[in-house]
């Protein structure tokens, strides 16, 4: 496998230009005031990876604390119940709002999307920079909330707990509000970019599937995030002015809060997973060297997932006290979501069929994704089905399910995409062997950690529990060991990628034989992306040997 790269690695088609986007201008200030989508993407990347590191450390602490029911480590209690609640809340808030939501769209999407469209930049470069700064402000506020107080509501901020608990809930809620606007600006930018800045000759169905995925995501970002904003405003006002909308002590309705919250946060699940699917739709044809099977079906399924995501939010509330009619309707609608997800899965497998598959690191991640997202998606059926959901909801089964989707799906795809575009972004190749080892370790550790949690949950272990019954101890311990394996895998991956930065530029323009436009420019790209406006000559994923007019 080691020689697959060299066997077909193309040396740069034309001499590497002296000036690229990284060294076109120098100094911190030139980065802070940049409107170059590539630089903003890189800054976002640094930001979200920092958030991922923080959230990951909190996750390791949560798992470490659950190693045994007494929370003992070397004869000392690792953390109290209050601390535990704060740590898992921070893990949730950071991972969801600071990491996963901006991860693929704002970091990788910002970098790649205009390149894929053959554009010079996004539609509104200054808005793009504003979005990044809003993210920074939100992140700083969230960190202030952590340092100068504590928040123990869980990432869902359910009322009336969140309206009555002490701590810096208001500050944290305002931080998330600002992060929401960062996300909205990204969404507006991408929709306008896709509509208006496609290369000459590129029709809607000539766009790479990554663009379709990001476009669908952007629709959700625009349509759902404002409701999160107003929800959090109302929550903050409830805390400060007791307006009586969410707190039952004041005549409000906590179930209404859940409607408001999930009207955003269920679509937000698709803000997280659609870009992951989008990356996989790039990786599989590229590394199978075969055209995408059912391109249109995959494109349509992205959009339909985006739209369907708005009408299923009530499946988070089957036992929360919404009306029984609403419960039945939401359950029925929920099953619709399974269809486009299944279509994508089958089309990916259909693309691999009779391909010419090389297992470089990005493809290893893609196959991990297929397996992990397969489990995540299929266990979703248990939770959409009414009678089993009553037993399984609010248990570790749910925890395992959404980690399989969010981490096994989105994070795996994100890291896969990072390895895929790393040569383009940095101009350097990483060490293939270490990258593959990291991927395999993450895959094994992930299954150790979360497969066990399905059993914990179906046995009846509720989520967000500090103390647990002794009978669950072996499974919890195994899960904790798994988290260490993930940590090790992530560490190897991170060191490997960072180590590559010390080398001189050595990446070819198109190391993987990709067909989309971002591979037609140099690695790293020049400041304005392309020497000449690229014109689409062939549809994406066309691996036929002879150029065929499309």
């Amino acid at each position, binding site marked *: 496998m080691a020689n697959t790269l060299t066997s077909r690695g193309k040396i740069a088609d034309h001499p590497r230009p002296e000036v690229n986007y990284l060294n076109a201008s120098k100094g911190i200030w030139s980065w802070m005031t940049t409107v170059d989508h590539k630089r903003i993407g890189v800054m976002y990347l640094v930001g979200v990876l920092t958030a991922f590191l923080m959230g990951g450390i909190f996750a390791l602490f949560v798992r470490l604390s659950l190693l045994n029911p007494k929370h003992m480590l070397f004869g000392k209690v690792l953390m109290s119940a209050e601390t535990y609640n704060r740590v898992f809340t921070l893990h949730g808030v950071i991972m969801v709002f600071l990491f996963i939501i901006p991860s693929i769209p704002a970091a990788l999407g910002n970098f790649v999307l205009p390149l894929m469209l053959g554009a010079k930049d996004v539609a509104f470069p200054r808005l793009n920079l504003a979005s990044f700064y809003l993210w920074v402000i939100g992140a700083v506020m969230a960190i202030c909330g952590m340092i100068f107080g504590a928040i123990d509501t869980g990432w869902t901020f359910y009322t009336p707990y969140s309206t009555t608990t002490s701590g810096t809930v208001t500050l944290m809620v305002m931080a998330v509000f600002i992060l929401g606007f960062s996300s909205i600006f990204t969404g507006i930018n991408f929709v306008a970019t896709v509509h208006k800045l496609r290369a000459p000759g590129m029709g809607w169905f000539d766009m790479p599937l990554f663009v379709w995925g990001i476009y669908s995501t952007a629709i959700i970002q625009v349509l759902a995030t404002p409701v999160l904003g107003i929800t959090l405003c109302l929550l903050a006002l409830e805390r400060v002015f007791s307006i*009586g909308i969410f707190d039952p002590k004041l005549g409000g309705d906590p179930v209404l809060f859940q409607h408001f919250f999930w009207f955003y946060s269920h679509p937000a699940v698709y803000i997280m997973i659609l870009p992951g699917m989008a990356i996989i739709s790039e990786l599989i044809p590229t590394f199978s060297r075969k055209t995408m099977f059912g391109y249109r079906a995959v494109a349509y399924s992205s959009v339909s997932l985006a739209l369907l995501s708005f009408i299923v939010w009530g499946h988070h509330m089957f036992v929360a006290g919404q009306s029984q009619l609403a419960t039945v309707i939401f359950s029925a609608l929920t099953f619709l979501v399974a269809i486009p997800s299944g279509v994508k899965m089958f089309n990916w497998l259909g693309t691999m069929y009779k391909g010419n598959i090389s297992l470089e690191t990005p493809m290893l991640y893609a196959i991990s994704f297929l397996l992990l997202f397969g489990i995540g998606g299929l266990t979703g059926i248990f939770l959409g089905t009414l009678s089993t959901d009553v037993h399984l909801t609010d248990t570790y089964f749910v925890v395992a399910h959404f980690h399989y989707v969010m981490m096994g799906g989105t994070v795996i795809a994100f890291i896969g995409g990072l390895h895929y575009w790393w040569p383009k972004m940095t101009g350097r190749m990483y060490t293939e062997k270490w990258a593959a080892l990291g991927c395999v370790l993450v895959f094994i550790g992930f299954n150790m950690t979360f497969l066990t949690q399905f059993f914990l949950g179906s046995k009846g272990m509720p989520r967000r529990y500090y103390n647990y019954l002794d009978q669950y101890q072996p499974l919890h311990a195994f899960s904790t060991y798994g988290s260490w394996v993930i940590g090790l895998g992530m560490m190897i991956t991170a060191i490997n990628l960072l180590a590559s930065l010390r080398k001189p530029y050595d990446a070819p323009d198109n190391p993987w034989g990709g067909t989309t436009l971002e591979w037609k420019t140099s690695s790293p790209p020049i400041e304005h992306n392309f020497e000449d406006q690229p014109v689409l000559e062939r549809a994406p994923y066309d691996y036929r040997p002879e150029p065929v007019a499309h």
Partner: protein
Amino acid sequence: MEQQFDTSKIGMWLFLVTEVLLFGGLFVGFGMMQARYPQEFLEAHEHLQRPLGALNTVVLLISSFTMVMGVLSAQRNDKKKLVMYLILTIICACIFLCVKYFEYSHKFEEHLLPPRWYQAQPGDTVRDAAGNVSHGYGTFFAFYFMMTGLHGFHILVGIFLLAWIAIRAHRGEFSSKYYTPVDLVGLYWHLVDLIWIYLFPLFYLIK
């Protein structure tokens, strides 16, 4: 230029959609609380001054008209009229805010305020045995202040935008070939008007 104009328009419309949904959340909240406290909301809305609300509606509608005439003037390369219409729009916006100021100060004097500060009015009928009034009255005014406040904030932002556009227009930066900012601020201004079109009957009129 054409391309950029179209792109900006799409961006602006997307932004307007987020505004609609932002206000929409408040409308949904208002609807649900109205369903919970029908009697309280009915009685509380009698405290709002219908003529002032109607006056403000007319003022905003006229301002929308002057705004669109401004855009038309820009399209027709008529700098003088553009500036005039923009100033007229700003004047309307200021009248709107003045009326709102009088309405707000009336509410403050009467203690028609969100629950924490709401003072029972003689006409409030939903009371418990001890004479305490229902929480619903305050909730109505909480929504009144939140929604008209958020709307008023948009008006205020609009005034600054209009002033900025008017200054640029005065400098002659716009022509029939380039008037995107005028058009976008116009769209924003119409949306603010459009939201008020719903706010007015919801708060002042519906029984």
